[in-house]
């Protein structure tokens, strides 16, 4: 890993990094900066995750003719903070005859893989921790690790409901990983690079990729959103924790902070899937039609956040509208419909590029 690739955002961080370099030798300073960035990211995304929980509750309330949390802080803004505080201070209970080591390890697999994926996101031109040249590949690889945590949790809990949930998760994630990967690959054909920042830059001139690649891009986007929702184990693909069938699925036996890790990871994964979609289809931090390109003070990161929240809202819309699929229907959808469609779509995209039909 090349530390010089680290791009530190904004002026205040520049001041901090200059100060650290001035008081330490170069190697120590670069390590220190890594740690500082890691801690900053952790805090940032833990809070972001908590506010996504609040957003979900507000959106759910909106769909369900309710008001939603409105007691803790103005508009319930502190509600999830209070919930997190409660979960931190809660006793960690577990059943007897669990596999202690795996049981305790499982939540960390899930949460660490979720946080690691954050490292490569191009929030804006300057705001990206690692701009590695295999960014997309890194994202796919990292997001696959989370399922190991879910499998471990189900296996080690000594609970049959948890085991069924974990096995379903295995089926689901392995199947839908293909669709996620292939639909990303379709878009990579168009850009010719795996580096996330370059993918975004490629959209500065020709317009967003979803417009550049027209029909195959739109198909890829739809497949990506369906498969991405399945990857994050959210409704209508929430078979892993299907509460009317399995209680709470794989995290039935977890309490307190360990449960909170699973819970938070779900929301951060949702953020990750939406972010990938924004980078690959909607021009990342670029403003639509370049409307704020010449406004110097306008933070580009804001566009990124707006787009991501838009897609997250779409995923929440799915969740609060659709009934849940059955496990065999879930697999039929992937292997009989999405995968063949996806393979054909790649060929279609290749033809479109070959004939130079892109916009």
């Amino acid at each position: 890993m090349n530390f010089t690739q680290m791009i530190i955002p904004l002026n205040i961080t520049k001041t901090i990094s200059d100060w650290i370099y001035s008081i330490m030798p170069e190697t120590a300073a670069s390590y220190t900066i890594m740690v500082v960035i890691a801690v900053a990211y952790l805090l940032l995304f833990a809070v972001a995750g908590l506010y996504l929980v609040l957003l979900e509750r507000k959106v759910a309330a909106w769909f369900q003719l309710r008001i939603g949390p409105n007691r803790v802080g103005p508009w319930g803004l502190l509600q999830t903070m209070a919930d997190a505080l409660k979960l931190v201070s809660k006793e960690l209970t577990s059943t007897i005859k669990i596999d202690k080591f795996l049981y305790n390890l499982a939540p960390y697999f899930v949460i660490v893989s979720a946080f690691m994926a954050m490292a490569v996101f191009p929030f804006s031109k300057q705001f990206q921790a690692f701009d590695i040249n295999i960014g997309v590949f890194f994202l796919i690889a990292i997001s696959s690790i989370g399922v190991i945590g879910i499998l471990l949790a189900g296996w080690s809990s000594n609970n049959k409901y948890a085991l069924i949930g974990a096995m379903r998760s295995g089926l689901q994630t392995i199947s839908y990983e293909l669709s996620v990967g292939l639909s990303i690959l379709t878009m990579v054909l168009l850009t010719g690079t795996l580096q996330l920042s370059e993918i975004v830059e490629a959209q500065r001139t020709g317009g967003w990729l979803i417009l550049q690649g027209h029909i195959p891009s739109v198909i890829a986007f739809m497949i990506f959103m369906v498969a991405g929702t399945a990857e994050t184990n959210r409704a209508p693909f929430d078979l892993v924790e299907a509460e009317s069938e399995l209680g709470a699925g794989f995290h039935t036996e977890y309490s307190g902070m360990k449960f909170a890790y699973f819970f938070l990871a779900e929301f951060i994964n949702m953020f990750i899937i939406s972010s990938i979609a924004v980078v690959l289809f909607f021009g990342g931090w670029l403003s639509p039609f370049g409307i704020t390109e010449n406004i110097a003070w306008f933070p580009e990161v804001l566009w990124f956040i707006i787009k991501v929240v838009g897609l997250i809202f779409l995923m929440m819309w799915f969740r609060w509208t659709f009934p849940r699929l059955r496990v065999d229907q879930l697999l039929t959808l992937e292997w009989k419909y999405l995968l063949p469609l996806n393979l054909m779509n790649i060929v279609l995209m290749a033809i479109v590029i070959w004939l130079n039909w892109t916009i």
Partner: protein
Amino acid sequence: MTDQQLQNKIKTEEYFINMGPQHPAAHGVLRLILTIDGEIIKNVEPDLGYIHRSIEKMCERDSYQQIVHLTDRMDYLSSHINNEAVCLAVEKGLEIEVSDRVKVIRTIIDELTRIASHCLWWGVMGMDLGALTSYFYAFRDREMINDIFEETCGARLTMNYNVPGGLMFDIHPNFVKRTKDFIAQFKTKIPEYNRLLTDNVIFHKRTKGVGILTREDAISFGVSGPTARASGFSSDVRKHHPYSAYDRVDFKEILFTEGDTFARYQVRMMELWESISIIEQLIDNIPEGEIKAATKAVIKLPKGEFYQRVETARGELGVYINSAGNKNPYRVKFRSPGFSNLSVLNHISKDVLIGDLVATMASFDFVIPDIDR
């Protein structure tokens, strides 16, 4: 390697899990002992007794007026209809003819109860299938019915509005207006229900062809109510043995022949329209009359057996009273719809997935205190 050899090599083992007594899909304290192979259900054994209050035994201790209050707690979603069943049985024994006004009011409230019960069922059905939003839509509309009940009867769920010989008191002056308002509003809401759940493609996939109950099975297991009518078994007590004012209203008995979960769903959804039609026919011409026939303070039924059947939201409820001529009954037995309907669950849930069992159970609309009295 042949299939047989492969099967010998890869063995699967059956195991059991307890679905309940505390499980989100059990709607109460029903315990199902599932024997499953992977996710495929091999056997479903319902285990009852978690909410047994020995209501039938308590009835032997109480006077006839007091029995009425106990029946609220059986099928709490059709409490008015339960009360009415007991009152009708007692009135049969005393040979009292209640006034037309009582008959019409009882019928209107019966149908309002049925709508409220079906609303709750619709919300919970969506929730069991993973669509949580339907629950809140249903409760919004059910709330209006509960408000009407609260105004007239003083209670929202366990109403106790019936007494042997009539009603406890007259309807509230606002009753007619509010019921009409509700009907007008509810008519616009059923299409909304259909847009949210009925027309959803995932919902169709989850319910069509799932948990098929044939007509023969429905008859031999004594299944009744919407569940039986979805299998083509015409079993509506309101139609075949009319009581109260059902003989003077015009309504259809909804019959489907598929017998699957979706048919049971459709029967209930269309029954909502029938209930609305019944209420509309009666609400404008509630006749004047006594609201309570004169009965003695201590009711003594003549020696003998008395039976009355009514159609609750879940099916046929039978009340059997064996009187020895005293102020309290010698024996009371309730034939509850849920118990018979539950007995067929194992028969139609062999070799299905867990998700299918949940969908089937949701479409049966169990109320556990009704099964386990």
